[in-house]
């Protein structure tokens, strides 16, 4: 430990432990999304149980993060960047927990879809899945590397995902009108696309939090128009 860090040793150990929790959550959530999304494309029903199990761990970690955050705030009087980090960690853990729940929803939809009539391949779905997974990876990477530039890029990508969801809606409606036997499968896919869009929104939230962490100002809700990356 450097000389500086020897001071407030207990505080730094607590802070590191908090960070560990969050990183564990992030790792699991990323994996859940990676497991659940292909399951839809490949009509694999086995993912659901696994994903639900591991999501329990994410929920546990969220509770632990909450407790650690309260304790740090009450006992250690953190300031400046330490304060921003702790507050941000709290927000990101909430977002990650919800991402986990959406991943669970997706994997359950995949399982239900095995009983329905398969639909023709929808390019947009695969694209949505890929972009969303990329956004999640980038958002978490920007947190780990404390890069505001990467974070801002993620925010920019969110619009694309919204567009794709709207396209999916139109395509699926068309499919449903064409062949009533496809309704079951189409509705599941609709659900999946909504969950994916929510995951992308949460990834955007995380990125906005990262910018706050790094730069000390908030870009949420259009507080700052995302401009061209530096």
């Amino acid at each position, binding site marked *: 430990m450097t000389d*500086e*860090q020897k*001071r*407030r040793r207990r505080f730094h150990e607590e802070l590191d432990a908090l960070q560990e929790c969050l990183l564990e959550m992030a790792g699991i959530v990323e994996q859940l999304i990676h497991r659940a999304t292909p399951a839809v494309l490949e009509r694999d029903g086995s993912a659901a149980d696994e994903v639900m199990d591991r999501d329990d761990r994410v929920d546990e970690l969220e509770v632990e993060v909450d407790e650690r955050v309260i304790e740090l705030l009450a006992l250690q*009087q953190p*300031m*400046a*960047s*330490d*304060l921003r980090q702790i507050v941000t960690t709290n927000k990101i853990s909430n977002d990650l927990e919800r991402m986990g729940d959406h991943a669970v929803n997706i994997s359950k939809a995949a399982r239900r879809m095995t009983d329905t009539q398969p639909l023709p391949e929808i390019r947009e779905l695969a694209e949505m899945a890929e972009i969303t997974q990329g956004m999640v990876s980038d958002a978490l990477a920007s947190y780990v590397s404390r890069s505001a530039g990467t974070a801002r890029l993620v925010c920019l990508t969110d619009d694309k995902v919204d567009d794709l969801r709207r396209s999916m809606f139109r395509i699926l409606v068309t499919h449903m009108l064409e062949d009533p036997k496809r309704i079951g499968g189409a509705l599941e896919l609709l659900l999946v696309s909504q969950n994916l869009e929510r995951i992308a929104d949460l990834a955007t939230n995380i990125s906005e939090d990262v910018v706050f962490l790094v730069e000390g100002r908030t870009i949420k809700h259009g507080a700052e128009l995302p401009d061209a990356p530096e």
Partner: protein
Amino acid sequence: MATTYDIDLGGRDPALEAVDLSVYYGETHAVQNVSLTVPQNQVVALIGPSGCGKSTLLRCFNRMNDLISSARVDGRVDFHGQNLYAPEIDPVEVRRRIGMVFQKPNPFPKSIFDNVAFGPRVNGMKVDLDALVEESLRSAALWDEVSDRLNDSAYALSGGQQQRLCIARTLAVRPEIVLMDEPASALDPIATQRIEELIYELKKDYTIVIVTHNMQQAARISDYTAFLYMGQLIEYGPTETIFTNPREERTEAYVTGRFG
């Protein structure tokens, strides 16, 4: 060369302005070219590690450094457009208009009444002393506790009460600015809290500059915070900025407890 920090005065007049202020103790350059503006009716906190010059800077504002023979002051302190260090200015008059409360409560070995009345008496203020003493003790949130024993010795009071007595004493000469040098550092937490509440009330009628080594206290009660290190002004700005997102690395290192 030090950086000047222009702060947004929020539409208020400046109460005090230090311009390129330096203090030398013999060879030591204790305060180095500090410039800052104190807005009226606000609380400005001076923070920094021990020996950074914050008390020395504070004592420039009411020319208390004049009492130290080895101290030399360069630069200006502007008060209502006049430089306090101009040769024609009488330091005694300065101290009546800019009062000071010290770290350890230091009441005179006299009665409570005489303590508060001392300032008005030595300054020849033609006032109803009884009324003035009551007014000052009320402003210092001490009247209710001592109104029935004004002739008791000041030393019969507790530490927190003595410090409020010192504040009442300072207010009795009706200053515009009150300087406080770590006013609560010798007090227990409850007494400290009462002093902090008092400062919040006093802000309405006075401008307050407070030196504190307790960062949380500065964060709680001040509107603007100045961070000094080794005689230099490192950063000066609104308190919430200093404590959530300071501009300077050294400020960040200090408020997060990495040094000092």
